[in-house]
């Protein structure tokens, strides 16, 4: 079976982002960009399915500017077989991404589609679920364990109260949580090999998808800053402050 992985290019999780002075967005100039951390986990899971003989081919898809090729190459170096870039310079929102991914799923007839639980830029946590809806498929979100069976997959999910296990029919959409696996690092020979793997490029129009956003960002502002606190010298002082100054304990 084919496994499809969706990979988003995002600001690296170590970057301290800065809101632009004119409140139009965050400063993306000369900022390190990476594969969304949850998508690294998605790639790792797909590659493991291939290594286990469950999957024959792992395809990675990214939607965005041509620079997304870098993140597709990273995925190829980690063991994916080929890449697809759906190229557009426009801002593409989750519903439109899901429509684009649905077109690719239809084209490739993938049985398992793995996305991240959320992209750490917009923190939306929507795309996988939307893709499942549009494709009329089952979904298993926030996965911390995946077992593929015959025509089904059994997935342990991280929920608010702990863990739950569900069984979904294939084809299915899985979204990854942090503890699904620990992604590997790409080896130098694999980085070299990845350069020779194919990346096909389409536009949303090629796929017949209108990506016009319906949500407009009016402004982006910094969050309200916290007042600087103090360093206390002892546990006694701490308890005294909490009781008598902050009045949060009695």
């Amino acid at each position, binding site marked *: 079976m084919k496994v499809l992985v969706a990979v988003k290019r995002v*600001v690296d*999780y170590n970057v*301290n982002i800065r*809101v632009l002075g004119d409140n139009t967005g*965050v400063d993306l100039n000369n900022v390190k960009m990476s594969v969304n951390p949850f998508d690294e986990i998605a790639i790792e899971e797909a590659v493991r399915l291939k290594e286990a003989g469950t999957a024959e081919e792992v395809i990675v898809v990214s939607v965005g500017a041509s620079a997304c090729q870098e993140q597709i190459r990273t995925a190829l170096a980690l063991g994916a077989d080929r890449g697809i870039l759906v190229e557009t310079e426009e801002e593409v929102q989750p*519903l439109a991404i*899901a429509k684009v991914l649905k077109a690719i799923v239809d084209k490739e007839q993938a049985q398992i589609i793995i996305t991240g639980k959320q992209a*750490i830029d*917009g*923190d*939306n*946590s*929507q795309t996988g*679920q*939307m893709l*499942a*809806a549009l494709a009329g*498929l*089952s*979904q298993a979100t*926030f996965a911390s364990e995946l077992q593929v069976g015959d025509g089904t997959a059994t997935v342990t999910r*991280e*929920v*608010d*109260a*702990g*863990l*739950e*296990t*569900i*069984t*979904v*029919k294939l084809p299915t959409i899985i979204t990854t*949580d*942090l503890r699904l696996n620990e992604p590997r690092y790409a080896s130098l020979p694999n980085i070299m090999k990845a350069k020779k793997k194919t990346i096909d490029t389409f536009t949303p129009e090629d796929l017949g998808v209108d990506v016009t*956003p*319906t*949500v*407009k*960002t*009016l*402004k*982006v*502002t910094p*969050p309200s800053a*916290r007042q*600087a*606190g*103090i*360093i*206390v010298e002892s*546990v*006694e002082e*701490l*308890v005294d*402050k*909490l009781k008598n100054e*902050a009045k*949060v*304990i009695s």
Partner: protein
Amino acid sequence: MSILVVAEHDNSSVKASALVAIAAAQAIGGDIEVLIAGAGCAAAGETAAKVAGVNKVLVADNDAYSHDLAENIAALIVEIGSNYSHILSATTASGKNFMPRVAALLDVAQISDISGVVSEDTFERPIYAGNAIATVQSTDSIKVLTVRGTAFDPAAADGGSATIENLDIAKDEGLSSWDKEEIAELERPELTAASIIISGGRGMQNGENFALLESVADKLGAAIGASRAAVDAGFVPNDMQVGQTGKIVAPDLYIAVGISGAIQHLAGMKDSKVIVAINKDEDAPIFQVADYGLVADLFKAVPELDALL
């Protein structure tokens, strides 16, 4: 304008997160209807009818909705959804699971995790782990929204007298089934409902050492949280994780013990009223958000704190 709030419940009562979603609906303004979907959930429907400001409660009591399977719940909501201007739920694991499915089936965007209502079509929401706040406007005919649990004061659980309507809609999509759960027994307040939280990080070294925090928590009536590092290392279960990808909390008092203060952790707790940090590294970033910082070895400081309470 009619607003539908999909309320999370435990079959007997509605969850606090649902009261927050109802409060957000009140901020938007309009008739508020609450959907209670489940199996054996009539009692929860009755508690929802008492919530202040609710006009009508819809109860969909059917086995198909017993375990919150996203495919079935979404199909139900979509069946009734086009009657509403807004559809809301809390930003919980459950809401995050089915709401985007609802939005896509209605062919509209979802606005996730709103932290403010500017007008009926304009909302504020945190992005980049809360390091920026976006004000966004939707042109969709139906606004599908999830609501940040810490952002609105919950609607009063009493004082309302909504009518209750039973929905005879069974949507079993047959795509998924529920097998089992591993749910931690709660001896303490739930993280998202607690007014005091004490959290441990990698500095705790192992799961046994969390007993130090438990003792303090018992004296303060506090909930216990953790950093991702503590959960990944297997010290404590996943439901205790606070942060960008864990639970978002804003208690009156948050005590971070042996936690460095990575942005992903801060994203989940920096709206707490008072923050205390206990860390042996005076340069730890957690001190930049702490109202009271104590530079100390936690294995000395926490037992001392325990003794003083």
